[in-house]
């Protein structure tokens, strides 16, 4: 149901755009497909999940690309066009959430988790190493396979 309303609202807004009286004359000449795709690449329509707009084959996405083309020919900048879509359909049209409010969590949590992980690891390593320092007789490790043991030995001899 939600998808249908979304599609409908998209279609209505597109119709409204197309019938705008006297669309402003092109300012920088007709934008090329590549210029359109450059912007479309970073946008996602709410219906086709996870498919960037520049490669999405659906009709609705084709119409979105037409909107971008039209806006470009009216002299809009990339940011203005993106902002336009955000205002119409919400933050979800952007490839990554804008860094504000709860969205900060997206960017903060992974590095934070990594730092915490690294800290735990280093503490564990310190904990493991201290007794090793105290203990003079370090038990030699016994590889399970005597062949590997021999090989290791050979390799170490060669390296010396």
């Amino acid at each position, binding site marked *: 149901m939600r998808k249908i309303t979304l599609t409908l609202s998209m279609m209505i807004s597109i119709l409204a755009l197309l019938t705008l009286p006297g669309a402003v004359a092109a300012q920088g000449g007709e934008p090329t*497909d590549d210029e359109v795709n450059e912007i479309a690449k970073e946008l996602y329509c709410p219906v086709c999940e*996870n498919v960037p707009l520049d*490669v999405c084959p659906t009709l609705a996405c084709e119409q979105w690309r037409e909107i971008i083309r039209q806006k470009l020919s009216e002299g809009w900048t990339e940011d203005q066009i993106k902002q336009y879509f955000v205002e119409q359909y919400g933050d979800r049209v*952007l490839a990554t*959430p804008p860094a504000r409010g*709860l969205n900060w969590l997206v960017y903060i949590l992974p590095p934070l988790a990594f730092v915490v992980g690294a800290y735990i690891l280093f503490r564990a390593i310190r904990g493991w190493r201290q007794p090793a320092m105290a203990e003079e007789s370090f038990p030699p490790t016994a*590889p399970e396979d005597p062949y590997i043991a021999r090989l290791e030995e050979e390799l170490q001899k060669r390296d010396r």
Partner: protein
Amino acid sequence: MIANVGYFSLVLAFLVALYGAIAAVYGERSGRSRYIESARHAMLLTWPLVTVSALAIIWLLVNGQYQIRYVASVTSNSMPAYLKITALWGGQAGSLVFWSWLMAAFASAVGLRKWRRDRDLLPWVVVVTMVTLAFFLGLVIFVGNENPFARLWLSPEGQQVTALFQPRGATPLVPPDGQGLNPLLRHPGMIIHPPTLYLGFVAFVVPYAFAIAALVTGRTDDRWIRITRRWTLVAWLFLSLGLILGGRWAYDVLGWGGYWGWDPVEIAALMPWLTGTAFLHSVMVQEKKGMLKRWNMILIILTYALVIFGTFLTRSGVLSSVHAFAQSAIGPLFFAFIGATFIGSLSLLVKRWDDLKAENQLGSLISREALFLFNNLLFMGILVVCFWGVIFPLISELFTGQKVTVGPPFYERANSPLGLGLLLLMAIAPLSVFGRTSWKLLGKALWKPLALSLLVPIFSILRGTTNLGALIGYWVISLITLVTLYEFWRGALARRQRHGESFPAALWKLTSRNRRRYGGYVIHLGVVLMTLGIIGIEIFQAETQGTLAQGEQLTLDRYTMIYDSLSQFDTQDGRNVTRAVVSVYRDGKYVGELYPRKDFYYASQQPMTIPGVRSTLEDDFYVLLVGWESIGLGGATFKVFHNPLVNFLWIGGLVFILGTMVAAWPARESESVLKFARKRAATARS
């Protein structure tokens, strides 16, 4: 009739699995080994039972029994027979049965192993595998929407109903034709991609089962790891193969010039692979040094949870929104199961926490075991990024009501440094040793390959490469290659000196007698080649799009294509094909024709964009037909990609799989090793 047999067999398998789990617990607790043996037999019986059920579905699919809703939804008259068979995993209900079938097969295989030495682990292995199997069978049997045997009926009020048995007053509804398989899935890659992925998923249940058995019985040695070493490698082999095939399929079929889009479904399959890969590395530390016992438990528990999570995600889009999740019948069940098993496993681990103390100390910060730990840290980092990226849109929707997209730029930015760190470790770790070591020793081993590897980026700069990312990438992969080849070389040299073998013979013996180690190195070389392909696409991919009239041309990098003609026709299997012919010139020289096309499937009303690709070792020229005006007269729009080095991704994938096979290949244990093992076991007992 056949449908009823299939359904009945499925119910029987469910009951047998439940019985197996209960009998195993009872037998173990009461000390009656007869019940444990009976539980093992139950485990063996599940496979034939689910096989009957799967065969029944296949029979229904192949014979076009459209009264069965599942058959009507995934097959149609025009589909060839082999696609009808593969439709078993073409929809959710069928793939749940397929998953269960694989699970039962693996459980039976485990049941058939020689248990003499590990009798104490058996009941718990039965419990874990049978509970997992019962959960999946239960979903198929009890959740209405997932039953592949449900039939379509017409109620007296003229409404279409789905039910297994005839509702009162209803008449059978037999559609003349089915909707057909999703066109995206009608590709050779898609035929083998889901089974391989599922094989990988299911096989990881086995090491998990043994880990849980070790926890319950309180065995603190590494026996469970040794028993499941090959199972784990096989699981990992299939998971890797599944991921690579999925990438190839995306490249061939999805029509966006790439191989990986950081889609939640892809990430769902990647996550257990990440923990599995970390596990494969860190178990070596436990085997060698008796360390990381707790960590390995955590890794395998996580892998199992992610396997179930992945199965759930790959087959249902329910994570796309909170509403879809709440409305889906199986979403909450899956999460309850994952939560229960996860918490249960962790509490077992906590109970045994003190018993799983490390037996040894860490040698040094640059010892092999420490480097394995850093490797694990990086894999966990990537896992957190992936998991968080998949989950966050739901969290955002739940708390703010706003949906957001977490797309490729997020994953690429966060994972690139972590990936680079892994590559660096891959270059250094083979030169490190277990136990105590020093920077001096490492430096001595490293400086020669390091110096040599720097020549590659220098040479690239002289050839005109200025991209910093590419230069760093070239440097790291040449360092890995040199270090890895050096490992082979000095190992073979050592053998030659000792045994007087010729160099190739020494190399062969070296690898075949240390399959895991040298297989692992071959895998590393595979990763090197794949990285080269990834650098090619991520950094050097170029694209352009243009609308051409016939005879006009479009130029991209060294390539020029001329639009020759367009034709449109219907095919026997229900498609409307629009096919363009373009001539391709490289450096002004004619190199051939390409036929990018768009297929429109009438039954499912779905378009498919099939690229025309000229593929060489050096690069791919990839043409997509985006749109066209009226036939023959107007222009057509093409999107064109130039993908340098991309084929190294696929070649690297092959090498990767080859290396895994070397590592997993059963080795005939030599007499001396067996003697040694027996002696060790004897001393351990005394």
